[in-house]
């Protein structure tokens, strides 16, 4: 139990990457066309954080994982049907708007308030996990802001690995420029870790884990608190899809020699 940690994973939901995304402007600013009917998934980098959290908790008896997710209840329920089968966690849903356009500061304020009020959470043992950037807003600031609000100044972003040691310290690998990792040792919890991909493959669906999770997920969704997000002076001048559609030259009958010659000339050209 010496290394038991309390891991809170912040994870939003985003449209399935295979969907076409078209911006539309509504009374409160931009959104996505048919946003509520687009299939959704757990944000990919945040999902990495959840899988790492599950693995870390499994290795350190007495640990616990909470999953905090802000989004429309109906969409959260849909996504949880799959996510719940991956690792064990306690869901703390917050019923709020979906999408990448709301202000990150407001999101962070709501999430920090929710974390601070979690029953049973020992903040001295806290590892605050999440994706280092979302696949919607992609700002990479929400976790930092939550950390600041909770008074946590040991923060790491672009994390690919954590090694928790016997003495309660842990080594963290963070992505830096040039495909390298900065290596740091943090003496103890609490800390904030914004995960990149990590090293774990997506866990296989485990119906038993799913059933155990769902026993608490459905009641949690039923009593999810409602959050309204302030704009904080953020104004959208425009939001549009990129127009660029290339005129593709498709070469079906060139020999490897001809293609190679053309490519080498192209590579050398300024």
């Amino acid at each position, binding site marked *: 139990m010496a290394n038991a940690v309390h891991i809170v994973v912040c994870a939003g939901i985003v449209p399935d990457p295979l969907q076409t995304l078209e911006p539309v402007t509504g009374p409160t600013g931009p959104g996505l066309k048919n946003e509520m009917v687009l299939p959704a998934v757990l944000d990919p980098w945040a999902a990495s954080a959840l899988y790492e959290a599950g693995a870390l908790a499994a290795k350190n008896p007495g640990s616990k994982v909470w999953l905090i997710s802000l989004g429309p209840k109906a969409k959260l329920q849909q996504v949880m049907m799959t996510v719940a089968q991956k690792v064990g966690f306690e869901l703390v849903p917050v019923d709020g708007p979906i999408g990448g356009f709301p202000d990150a500061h407001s999101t962070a304020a709501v999430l920090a308030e929710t974390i601070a009020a979690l029953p049973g959470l020992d903040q001295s043992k806290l590892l605050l996990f999440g994706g280092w950037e979302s696949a919607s807003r992609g700002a990479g600031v*929400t976790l*930092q802001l939550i950390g600041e609000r909770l008074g946590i*100044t040991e923060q790491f972003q672009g994390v690919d690995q954590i090694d928790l040691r016997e003495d309660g310290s842990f080594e963290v690998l963070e992505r830096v420029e*040039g495909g390298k990792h900065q290596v740091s040792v943090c*003496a103890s919890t609490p800390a904030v870790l914004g995960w990149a991909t990590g090293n774990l493959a997506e866990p296989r669906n485990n119906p038993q884990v799913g059933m155990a999770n769902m026993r608490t997920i459905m009641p949690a969704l039923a009593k999810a608190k409602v959050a309204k997000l302030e704009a904080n002076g953020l104004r959208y001048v425009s939001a549009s899809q990129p127009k660029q559609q290339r005129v593709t030259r498709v070469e079906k009958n060139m020999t490897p020699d001809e293609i190679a010659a053309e490519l080498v000339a192209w590579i050398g050209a300024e």
Partner: protein
Amino acid sequence: MESILVLTHMDETGTVLSKASLEAVTAGLELAAQIGASLAIGVIGSAAALNGVAATRARFFAVEGEVFTQARYATDAAAAEALCRAAGASIVLLPGSSRFSRVAAGVAHRLGGFIDTHITALTAAAGIEATRWFYRQRIEAVISRDSRPWFLLVDAGTQKPYAGEYAAAEVEKVAVAAPASRTTVTGVRAPEQGQQTIRPDAKMLFVAGAGWTKKQPDGQVHTSEAAELILGFLRASSSSLGSSKSLVDQGGEGQSVLPFLTHMNQIGQTGATPRHAKGLSTCCHGEEPHVVGWRFIADRRAISLDPNCGWTRGKADVVYIADAFAVMAKVNALLGTRE
């Protein structure tokens, strides 16, 4: 009137400003000229590094000290906060480096400010407007904020690095007490595979897709040959190596893998969106989750066996329907000859 502070840091040599910092200086100079704002430049590390931007005639601030030389949240946040308070700027521009991306939002919060990141352009129309992408480079938006201070993290590669005459800058040193920190930075580690394949400054991006490790026409998998061809091309062309998610994921699924690939090579929806002048995709289907990672690749070519792959649908400039093994062997031979 607005006042602008550009926050900078040193490069890995610890003697000069990083390239991304110099890009932020360019952004600051241009924005200051557009809106008639005053300009200040602050550095974490060494005041002497500001001599390289002395010709901007900005007001200069520096936080120095051994404890601030390493990139670490607690110390960088304290230093950046002190620089911001000393300059009292309404707009703070920072380079979108890993170092400042880790800390900028926290600093904005401490100052009661707000932050927007991944800024690709700044203009002054009806106030300051910033351009950034949402949904992994699938929607481009122009934003503005009334609240101040407004922190803007400028994406690396979007501005020309500032270059001016070297001169002695008159620097105001800002004293900061080293904050308590439980974190010790022990170093920088290259991927275990040892091969340096990610080169952000390379002219060309070479992307390997999952097809390299699939069965070839002889019914066999030729992973070793694929590795030799890819590494040979990287060496000969000085390209940076990217990969599709599916190819990187194979490592975790026990399939045949290219030993030098890691998740850091991953390009696309769940990977990087690098900036290079040219890109060559091989053995990759070119569907949307992957191609969003190519948003900032100007000139795109692809080699694919599938004439209906995503690249042929307006996502590449040229697509060669061919066997990448055969083509890349010839390309490497030609590049070797040229060398």
